[in-house]
């Protein structure tokens, strides 16, 4: 049985740990994360790549996991909110989002946090325009984005050197 598991399934790195998915290769990564690995921090808002609630990082790049087939990510590194929340960078974002009241219903938040990570990795000191563009793939119906933009700006200031 052990042997079988090592050879079957799709191997990838999930939040720093090697794992194998036993789902069919065409299964959406979103469903693999939520149903197979019970990582429900990644949310489903549309399953069509439009809302960003399902955002994760693959090799540091922001993607919508609902549009990724698990078969296409063999050997790649997937980071979800459950892995990211253990990092020092997350702690900075967490505080900034809280101070700016950037979370209302929270459904968009895990995706927003990962979008912010991707944004700050690319632009550690983003301009207002870069922040808007960086978050524009993630819909939020509650906040009007002002508090989110403030939170990103605050995190960039406080986290100087981290990104």
């Amino acid at each position: 049985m052990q042997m079988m598991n090592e050879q079957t399934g799709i191997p990838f790195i999930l939040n720093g740990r090697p794992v194998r998915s036993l789902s069919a290769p065409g299964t959406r990564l979103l469903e693999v994360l939520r149903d197979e690995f019970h990582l429900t921090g990644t949310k489903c808002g549309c399953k069509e790549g439009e809302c960003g609630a399902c955002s994760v990082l693959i090799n540091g790049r922001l993607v919508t996991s609902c549009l990724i087939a698990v078969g296409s990510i063999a050997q790649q590194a997937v980071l979800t909110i459950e892995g990211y929340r253990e990092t020092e960078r997350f702690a900075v974002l967490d505080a900034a989002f809280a101070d700016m009241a950037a979370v209302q219903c929270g459904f968009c938040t895990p995706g927003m946090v990962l979008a912010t990570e991707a944004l700050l990795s690319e632009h550690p000191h983003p301009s207002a325009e870069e922040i808007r563009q960086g978050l524009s793939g993630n819909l939020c119906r509650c906040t009007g984005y002002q508090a989110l933009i403030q939170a990103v700006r605050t995190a960039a200031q406080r986290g100087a050197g981290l990104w």
Partner: protein
Amino acid sequence: MRGEALYVDDLLIDGLLYGRLLHSERPHARILAVRLPSLPPTVTVVDWQDVPAQNQIHIVQDDMPIFAKDEVEYVGDVILMLVGPDEQQLEDLLSQVRIDYQDHEPVFDPEQSQQIFFDYHYGHGEVEQAFAEADHIFSETFHTGLQEQAYLEPNGLIAVPTTRKMTVRGSMQCPYYVKTALVKALGKAAEQVQVVQDVTGGGFGGKEDYPSVLACQLAVAALKTGKPVKCVLNRREDMATTSKRHPSRCHYKVAVKDGLVTAMDIDVLMDSGAYTTLSPVVLQRGIIGAPGVYNTANLRVHGQARKTNTVPNGAFRGFGAPQTFFAVEMMMSHIAVALKQEPLAFKARQLVAQGDMTSTEGRYHFNVSLPELIQRAEELSHYREKRQAYARQSEARYRKGIGLSLIYHGCGFTGNSERDFIKAVVKLKKRRDDRVEVLASNADIGQGIKTTFAKIVADQLAIPLDQIIVNNPDTDLVPDSGPTVASRSLMTVGQLLAQAAAKLKQVWEPGKEQEIEEQYQHPEYMIPFDMERFAGDAYPTYSWAVSVVELELDRLTGTADISGAWGIFDVGVPIDYNIVQGQMQGGFLQGLGYSCMEHLAYSPAGVPQQTSFTDYIIPTAADVPNLVTDLINNPFSHGPYGAKGAGEMPMVGVAPAYLEALEQAMNCGRLEHVPFTAEDVLDRLGADPDRQQAEPDTWVSRERKAAGKPAAQVKSAGGGDPACR
């Protein structure tokens, strides 16, 4: 923030089955036969025959079926549910179900509809006389479109049956609404039904009535299978079949004498959709606000909601008010322009003030802060200066415009509902460890009510915030303090909690279990609302707002760049400044979406055309203007710490401000509908070049004196706009 909050789709329950709904494909038809494919033994069909008591969902009335029996009334009406362990299998089976329909003629245009669901009249003064004596009479018709709430978490619930009880849990605003509907549908005693709110990913009204529908369907399925059954709608299904903002047509006829409005005659028509659901209350709020924030000595208002064979429309932030405030603000602005006056100056001369009569012969009992709000809006936006400057622009490709609107939001339920129907009760339970639990049925749907409640109670008791416990409501534990609607949770329920906390403080005994209950008392100052006459105080008080939008239009592409936006609000006193600001900003942006991009329409066959975020466009971070929101203090003596209703208001005034700005930038005559998209701009700019020279005020009636007649003649505004370019 950490992704740990569990929404309904994240819950794992032993033995869980899934339910998938079969929706009608026809807008209006008789069901002749239902042909099912052969079903595996693990799959169960649930339909109207399985409903134990009444096959109608209680909302305000009981007219919407849980499962359609003989007739379907809109594309999306639910006929049956398939229940089983594998969602994908259910989807495959659903696609093989065949329904034989006998089509009836559907009605999509409310103007053509013969079925009037609700009809209200009210007014005062001598309307006919005022029109007879008018210098000018203006008349115009306005339309507003459908709008989808577009909460990020779709609707979803789970029904869990046990031998003693039926429990329904999930995403919702109003646990006790769901409970009442379940008791009626299942024919159970109140103690046998439990409703629990889980973390809810946004509502905005879209989870006010719809959860009662899904709850009844799921509970019937759970009863039949004896297993927990879950259904989380997919986005397309949610957008295509659940409630939206009522489209409206508002017709205004306004008399002006000596430069002031002397009478308004208003006719409002709302498209209810296929069932009544919340239409009576949406219509009431809409028509009460129809004369806007202006003194109108002579007033006649008529409102109807009619049936069409479309998705039943329901609650959405603003609840009828965005429609009529849009119309009245545009009307006032258009009259000002026709009289060659600056719109704000024209409006400011006739504002209501404290002590004045409301549209329904109630009173504005408290300070009307509009003058202060206008002043603040001026300071921040330089509206008047810009308005003048932009009027002198050349006919270039890029043109700027600025617009401003004035609105109120009637706080809380309309009329006497709070006293007669809701009768809110709250409890505070002090535990032995001196922690205090707040027991109220109001749901946190992202608006931060849990934090605000905790702050109020902690402050009254002078104990630290972390000693206060606020859980999501569970009808087995919390009393019915009413639904999470109408911007009432903080003002009404928060006040009860403040009173309960004050009482608890007086009897506080450390280390002892104590419980305090507080019940709603109707404010004594209120003039009782007489539903027959439609007269009295419709609301205990009002929140006020000024919205300003500034934009730059590219007349070649039709796109408008929002270069500035300001929302100045009086919500009494903000208890949590950040939370209120977040509400104002989020609401304002929904208002901008309503103004210019959120377009939703039905095909000629009655099928909703925009059912995903790909074609129903809501604002993204890249669309955000430099939005500035500001609050002034105007304490309300009967609200907790002076707070009034807040959540809905920011949505209401944006559309007229946006359209007034767009009108100025287009310089092409009057605009009269929202959403007004880039396509609409191009259409209008390109329309009939021959009429370019048309007088901008041809829609105005001739002056009475010039006409030499006793009464002014009315010219309809319909389609009379001059074209440009």
